[in-house]
C-alpha cells in the first residue's frame, strides 16, 4: 500500500513537469490564434474600405481626384490615404492620366513604421466617361 501511494505522488510530479513543458508552446499557439483572428477581421474590413474608396475615386470628377488623408474613414476605426499624382501629362494638359494609390491603415497607426492593411493602385484618364 505504501508503494502505491508513492507512485501517485511521482505521477503528480511528472504531470506537473509535463504540463509545464507542453503548456508553454500551446499557450503561444493560442495567443497567436487570438491575434490572428483580430488581424483577419481587420484585413477583411480594410479590403472592403479599399474597394469602396477605389470605386469612389473612379466616380469622382477628374479635377476632384486629389490626394487626401481621411481619418476614421466612413466612421470606421481605419485611416485611408489617397495619394494622387500625374502619371502622364500634367494639370494643364488637354489629356492626362492620374495615378491613384489608396492605402488603408488602422486608425492612429504610425504610418511611417507600419505597413498598410490593404492597398491598391490604378490610373484614371481625363475626358473619359461611362
Amino acid at each position, binding site marked *: 500500500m505504501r508503494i502505491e501511494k508513492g507512485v501517485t505522488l511521482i505521477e503528480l510530479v511528472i504531470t506537473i513537469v509535463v504540463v509545464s513543458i507542453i503548456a508553454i508552446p500551446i499557450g503561444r499557439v493560442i495567443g497567436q490564434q487570438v491575434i490572428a483572428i483580430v488581424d483577419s477581421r481587420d484585413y477583411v474590413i480594410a479590403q472592403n474600405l479599399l474597394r469602396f474608396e477605389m470605386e469612389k475615386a473612379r466616380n469622382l470628377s477628374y479635377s476632384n481626384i486629389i490626394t487626401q488623408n481621411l481619418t476614421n474613414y466612413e466612421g470606421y476605426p481605419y485611416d485611408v490615404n489617397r495619394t494622387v499624382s500625374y502619371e502622364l501629362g500634367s494639370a494643364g494638359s488637354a489629356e492626362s492620366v492620374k495615378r491613384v494609390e489608396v492605402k488603408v491603415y488602422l486608425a492612429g497607426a504610425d504610418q511611417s513604421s507600419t505597413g498598410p492593411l490593404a492597398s491598391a493602385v490604378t490610373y484614371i484618364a*481625363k475626358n473619359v466617361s461611362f
Partner: protein
Amino acid sequence: MANTNKGIALITLAIIIAFVAISSLGIASFVFNRLQVSAVNLSQIRTIYLAQAGIYRAIYDYRNEGAWQEMEVNISGIQYFRIGENGSFALVDTREDDLIGNNTMLRNWKVGNVHKANPITITHITVSWSPNISSERIEKIRINNKTKWTGSETSGTQIDITDTTINVGDEIDNNRFEFNSDMSGKTITAIFRFSDNSARSAVLYPANRKEFSIKSTGKIQDGQTWKRTLEATYDVVNSKITSWKETFNHL
C-alpha cells in the same frame, strides 16, 4: 482498487494534452486558412484595379496620338498591367451601315487599325444573326470591294476568309455580307478573328458606333502570379466607355 487507480493521473493527462493539442492545431489551421483567404482577396482586388489602369492608359494614348500599342507596365513593385492584342486594335465603324438588295446585303461597315506601328490581319469571320431561321444562310463576304469568301453557311459558323491585312492608320471599307434572305429586323453580329488568334466581336446591325475594344490584364507576382482581365469598349466619337466586363482569357 489500488491497482486500478495506478497511472490514472498520467493517462488523464495524456488524454487532456491530446485533446488540447488537437483543438489548438485545428483552430490554428482554420485561422491560417482564413488569413490566406484574406491575402488572396487582396490580390484579387488589386489586380482588377491594375487592369483598370491598363484600360485608361490605352484610352489616353489613343486620345493623345490617335493610336496605341501593346505594352506591359510595372506600376510599382510586384504590380503590373498588360494591354493589347490584335483584336484590340480593330476600330469598328458601324455608323453608315445599311441593308440593300431587298435587305439581303449588309454594307458599309468598316474596320480600321489603331495600332501605332503594326498591321493587323483578319483571318476568319463568324457572322451571327438573331432571330435565326434555319433556312437562312450567309453566302458571300466582300471586303475592300474584293470577294473574300463565297459559300453557304448558317448563323454562327466561323468562316475562313482570304487573309485581309489592315495597315497602320488604314481602314477597310466597301465591305459587304450577302445573305440568301431578307435580314431586316434582325441583329447581325460579327466576330473578327485575327492572325494572333485574338478576336473582336461587334454588333454590326442595327448599330451606330465607332469603337475599339481594349483588353487589359492586371497582374501581381508575389511568388504566385495573380491575374484578372477587363475588357472595355471605347466609343471614340462620344469619348465614352460603352461596355466594361471581366473576362477570364488573360493576356
